């Protein structure tokens, strides 16, 4: 209970700090005025732009935490991460396609759908490759993921070069691909809230079976889990979560890796407490990272994905080193 209160408190403080941060720093009192409905321009800007952006960043972080937890649970590998396993790359390819190719349907619908298709396809491809090559272990899966991610990245770059023109500037796609939370309207934020809650509910349905799967395939089967079917279902659910995160936040590296780890230190490895705790930790990380991205080099904005990669890369190396030593 103390841990949940603590996580909630840290997230609240992070949200307030992030809402104050920017190239024009606001005070908490300014925020209060803006939320209370003050009509002055600065308050309107805070209310229409910064606050939705901060909340969106928190939701994207929460989704990344959930997605990372599901993938680590399915692959039973603490180094599994949507970004490394190609599913985020697949989502990005789908989303880039949606951004650059004029399609009949509205982009708000096409982008998440294509992002989902890409995330799911890439993950199934990685699982397939590692199964066929007989390398279902951690290293085999990661290598397959890295290879698939590289291919998808190259395809995406090709599309970006070949399809961008004056109507869709490369800059838009690039800034999004490098990771950047789009500032949503309040209606968009409502949609994101609903998506995040659905994703939390969806992954919580998997929690008990993720625990069983963690006993290893033989024991999981002996305890009554249909392992192959469950992995397929869980990968599908994980892809939905990753696609939602990518659709709203672009490619943000390492949060899906770090958040479940930190959460596991706090609440242990059982997935029922782990999933919501990872979501909270992910939300805290991305809220703060996004605040840094917006305020470190005013008036420019650093892509969010670069901030998390610079901070998260060393974290990954540390985990890898510790794992190789044991």
């Amino acid at each position: 209970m103390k841990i949940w209160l603590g996580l909630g408190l840290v997230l609240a403080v992070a949200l307030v700090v992030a809402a104050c941060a920017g190239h024009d720093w606001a005070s908490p009192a300014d925020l209060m005025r803006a939320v209370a409905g003050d009509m002055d321009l600065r308050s309107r800007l805070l209310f229409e732009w910064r606050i939705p952006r901060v909340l969106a960043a928190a939701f994207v972080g929460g989704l990344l935490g959930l997605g990372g937890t599901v993938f680590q649970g399915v692959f039973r590998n603490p180094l599994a991460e949507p970004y490394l396993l190609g599913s985020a790359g697949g989502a990005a390819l789908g989303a880039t396609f949606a951004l650059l190719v004029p399609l009949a349907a509205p982009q708000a619908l096409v982008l998440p759908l294509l992002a989902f298709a890409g995330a799911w396809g890439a993950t199934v491809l990685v699982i397939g490759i590692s199964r066929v090559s007989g390398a279902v272990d951690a290293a085999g899966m990661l290598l397959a993921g890295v290879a698939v991610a590289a291919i998808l990245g190259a395809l995406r770059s090709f599309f970006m070069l070949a399809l961008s023109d004056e109507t869709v500037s490369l800059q838009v796609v690039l800034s999004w691909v490098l990771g950047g939370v789009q500032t949503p309207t309040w209606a968009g934020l409502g949609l994101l809230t609903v998506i995040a809650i659905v994703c939390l509910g969806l992954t919580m349905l998997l929690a008990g079976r993720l625990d069983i799967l963690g006993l290893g395939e033989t024991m999981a089967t002996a305890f009554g889990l249909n392992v192959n079917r469950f992995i397929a279902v869980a990968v599908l659910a994980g892809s939905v979560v990753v696609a939602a995160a990518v659709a709203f936040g672009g490619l943000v590296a390492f949060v899906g890796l770090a958040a479940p780890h930190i959460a596991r230190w706090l609440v242990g490895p059982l997935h029922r407490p782990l999933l919501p705790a990872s979501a909270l930790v992910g939300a805290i990380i991305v809220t703060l990272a996004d605040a840094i991205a917006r305020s470190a080099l005013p008036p420019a904005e650093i892509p969010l994905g670069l901030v998390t990669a610079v901070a998260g890369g060393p974290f990954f190396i540390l985990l890898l080193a510790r794992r190789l030593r044991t």
Partner: protein
Amino acid sequence: MTGIAASNLVLKRNGATLLDDVSLTLAARESVAVIGPNGAGKSTLLKVLAGIEASTSGRVRIGDRDLASLSSAARARAIGFLPQYFDPHWDLTVGELVRLGAERGERLPEDAIEKMGDQFELVGLGHRRWSTLSGGERARVLLAAVLVVDPPALLADEPAASLDIRHRLDVIEALAQRGRDRLSVVVVHDLDLAFGFFDRVILMARGRIVADEPAHRLIDDPRLDTTFGVRFDRLKTPDGVLLRATKERL
């Protein structure tokens, strides 16, 4: 009653025949040891009987149902399976592991988990993590997690192989005693334990059943010597016959 009957099991993988036309009938109440040299197919047979691996052909019946027609959950309640090697991916506590085992049960008595704790001397270990347990503690935790739903049939694959002698005796004795009112099938490496504790012994080699006899009869059988490729001296002791192997061409 839930005896297990297997007919004409064949399992081929990558060109190798792991099970070669195995048929056997296991009663609802008996203790059975499965012995044989390495690669005889003992573990594979157990996994197929437990429904964890599918055979290439042949069928397994449990009670009057086809094993393949049972749902995964029903199968997991009917058959407890104790693997040879178990290493959970996440560092769970003793309590969490036993509770995961209990989750597959239906309408378990409220004190089921507590009873396991008493029976397997786990009291006070509830909050200890798997990585901090000794080999003997791990074996007892695994037994508790598998037996907490009190499955009518238990298939155990050398669960005590790596334990010290006292814990090995404890585990083997507990498994054999279960055969008094349940079905208990155990792959045993130590032949003296197999013949000393179990009613019936199945001898396997190269994917086939070589002999399937009451323990007191098989122990004098020359097929034991030929199958293991050694000469056994049968040493008479007040507690029964002990086997001493001598490396000698037959």
